[in-house]
Structure formats: C-alpha cells, structure tokens
C-alpha cells in the first residue's frame, strides 16, 4: 500500500521499570476504520493507545500518525488532532458541560460564537439537549451522560483520529449497550479513524472493523470480527470462551 496508514505501529516495544509492557508490536490502522485493541487488564492496550497521541514514547520502534513518527511531530499539535476519551473521570469538574466540550476549540483560539455553535451541535449529536445540559457541571450528570459529554469533547475540533480507552467500562450494561449503539451511529455520520481499547469481547465484536488481540504485550491476532469468532488462535479462543462467546 502506498498511502500512509492513519496510525502505524512499527516494531514497537515499551519497557518500564524493568518489565516489558509491549513487545515488538506492529499494526496498521487504515483511515476510517475502527480497530479495537482487545485484551485483559495489564496486557498493554492502554500503553499502546497512549503512544498514538504522544503521551508515551516507545522504548524502541516507531509509532507513525499519518505517516510521520510521533516523536518528530509537534507534541501539542499531535494531541489536538487526536480526540481522546477515557473512562469516567476525564471531564474537568470545574468546567460546565459547554466549557468541557468547547475546550479544544478554545485552546485553538476559535471565536466564542463559533465555539458556542459547535458545542451545541455536538451535544445534540451525542443526544444531549444543549439548553438543558450545557450549563450543568459533570457532577450533575449520570455516568452515561458524562461519557456522552466526553465523546462530544473529543470530537470538538474535528480531529482525524479518535482514541478511546475503555470509554464505557464504568457504565451499567444497559447504558453501555445504548452508548455502543450510539457509537456505531456516530461512526456512520462522522468519518473518523478510531482506536478503541476494551477488555469486553462483545464490545469488540460489535464495534470493530478489525480486532487486534493484545496478549502479554504482543499482538496475538488481527482480524475482522467474524473471523475472530472462528479463529483457532489460542489466546483468542480463551477470551471468547471466558465471555461465553464460543459455541
């Protein structure tokens, strides 16, 4: 392929405090696809994710975003062109919903009127009435509403890449299913490249264009969800069996 991948891990390893967290990981994420990094806690998924926006630099190998190594990009520009959603507590408690959503546009120096317009548009897009919720603080919202705000915030400055770190992990099953449905809907309307970390096999099967199974710091298998169900890869079968997803 000649066009650069949206995200590419090129033989990436990460060692911290003497323990190897990622070993020789290579993975391409093509523009517009949603790759789910699936694996149990401590497998190194979040570490890999945080390398994409430069929160962490690899110990060896390279992470390329739009064909350029993250270490060679302006650190702040790189972070602003990646929307980032983390579990539960990523919202600023002292900012209203509007201020949270409008943060990156504000950092980018957009005029106030345009920020207000964009914020309202995004809140509607994630299913929150801007008039009702815009002036509230995160503590006045339910867990699901907070995650909607976090997603709206990640989309605010129209980043090309979205990074999700267990965004629905702290939600109850019904809210989680609802958020997943909305995620798919949103993906249909905004054409973004997404890297999504989860330990939930069903979530991975439902949301992924492709699943990359991370096991003890290595990528064990990369394939489409329907292939993932049928793979004879041992770690994949183990995680499927644990979730009751094997026939």
């Amino acid at each position, binding site marked *: 392929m000649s066009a650069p991948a949206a995200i590419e891990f090129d033989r990436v390893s990460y060692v911290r405090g003497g323990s190897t967290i990622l070993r020789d990981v290579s993975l391409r994420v093509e523009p517009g696809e949603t790759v789910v990094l699936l694996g149990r806690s401590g497998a190194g998924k979040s570490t890999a994710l945080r390398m994409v*926006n430069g*929160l962490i630099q690899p110990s060896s190998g390279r992470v390329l975003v739009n064909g350029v190594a993250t270490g060679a990009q302006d650190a*702040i*520009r790189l*972070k*602003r062109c*990646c929307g*980032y959603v*983390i579990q*539960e*507590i*990523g*919202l*600023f*408690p*002292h900012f209203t919903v509007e201020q949270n959503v409008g*943060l*990156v546009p504000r*950092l980018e120096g957009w005029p106030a009127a345009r920020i207000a317009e964009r914020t309202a548009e995004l809140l509607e897009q994630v299913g929150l009435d801007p008039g009702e919720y815009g002036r509230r603080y995160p503590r006045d919202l339910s867990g699901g509403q907070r995650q909607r705000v976090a997603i709206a*915030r990640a989309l605010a400055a129209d980043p090309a890449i979205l990074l999700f770190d267990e965004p629905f992990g702290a939600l109850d099953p019904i809210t989680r299913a609802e958020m997943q449905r909305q995620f798919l809907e949103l993906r249909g309307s905004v054409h973004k490249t997404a890297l999504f970390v989860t330990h939930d096999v069903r979530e991975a099967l439902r949301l992924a264009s492709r699943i990359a199974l991370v096991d003890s710091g290595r990528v064990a298998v990369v394939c489409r969800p329907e292939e993932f169900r049928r793979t004879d890869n041992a770690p994949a079968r183990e995680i499927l069996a644990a979730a009751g997803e094997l026939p």
Partner: protein
Amino acid sequence: MMRSDIAQQMAELTGEHVLLVLISVGIAVALALPAGIWIAHRSRARPWLTGFANVVQTIPSLALFGFLIPIPLIGGIGARTATVALVLYALLPVLRGTLAGILSVDGAIRESAVAMGMNGWQLLTMVELPLAARNILAGIRVATVSTIGTATIAAAIGAGGLGVFIFQGIASVDTTQILAGAVPAALLALAADGLLGLVERRLAAT
C-alpha cells in the same frame, strides 16, 4: 486620657495593625504561592522548602522578632523587621495549602488536560490552580488569622499596631488597656476568618 483620645488612638492602631497584616500576608502569598506550585511539580525540592517553613514555624515569635533586630537591612526596630517576621510565619500555611491543593488534582484529570493539548501554563492556570483554589484559600485564611494574632507582639519591637495597647497595659497593670488592644485584635481575626470563609464557600459552590 480623654475617651475620644482613646477612640482615636484605637482607630489609628487598628489601621496600623490591618496594614501590617495585609502587607505581610500579601508578601507571604506572593512568595509561597509560586514556591508551592514549584515544589508540587518538583518533588525533590519539596522536603527542603517545607522543612524550612516548618522550622521557622517552631521559633517562638518573640524570639524571632529579637533575632531579626541585629540583622542588617531587614533588621532594626520598626515595622520593617516585624513584616519580615510575620511573612516568615505566614509562609507555611500558604505553602502547605498550595502544595496540598495541586497534589489533590486527580491524575486522570491532569492527563486528560495534557491529552487535550494543553501546554504547561494552560494546565496550571486552567486546571490545577482552579481545582486547588479552595486549599490555597484555606491556607491564606489560616495565615491571615494567625498573623493578626502574632502582629500584636510586633509592638514589642516598635512596629505599632494593637499590641501597643497590650504592652502598655501589661506595663501599667491596666486590664482595661490590655483589653483595648486584645478585643479589637480578636474581632479583626474573627472578621477576617468569616470573610475568607465566605469566599471559600463561594468557591466550593462553583
């Protein structure tokens, strides 16, 4: 003394007292706030600075005023020496408040701010300081109230303030005169505490 003379003198001394406290706490905040921010981000400097502020706090105030008198430039008799001593005492609560406030900011929030593309200054001014504001204010409150009390001793080295009444009263074994200094000082402390407490609660409400 005529009653109106006492009233006038009390007003003057209260004015001196308030000025002494405002200047001292102001300087202490100007020093301890940046220092607190700095040590919150540089953990290696932390024990040194907090240790220094702690040690200063253990020196009895009358002794500290005495120690400062012979020191050139900052020493001598008068309000300047008193201000130096009061600043030293006010440093610790403000430093502690700032440090505790910034350290209390959740790591996930800080990381989220960095991941949004905030630079160090934006992280500090938009996230860390607003979230630490309550702790910082609590430190300033403690510093102010205790400085109002300690400042009465400043009269011993000729810095004026309500302590003048107290020392005169002690010298002439005149309880009324002691009270003429002590009661306004106590009222000042209560007023400052109430006012800053109000600001603190307003901050908590947002």
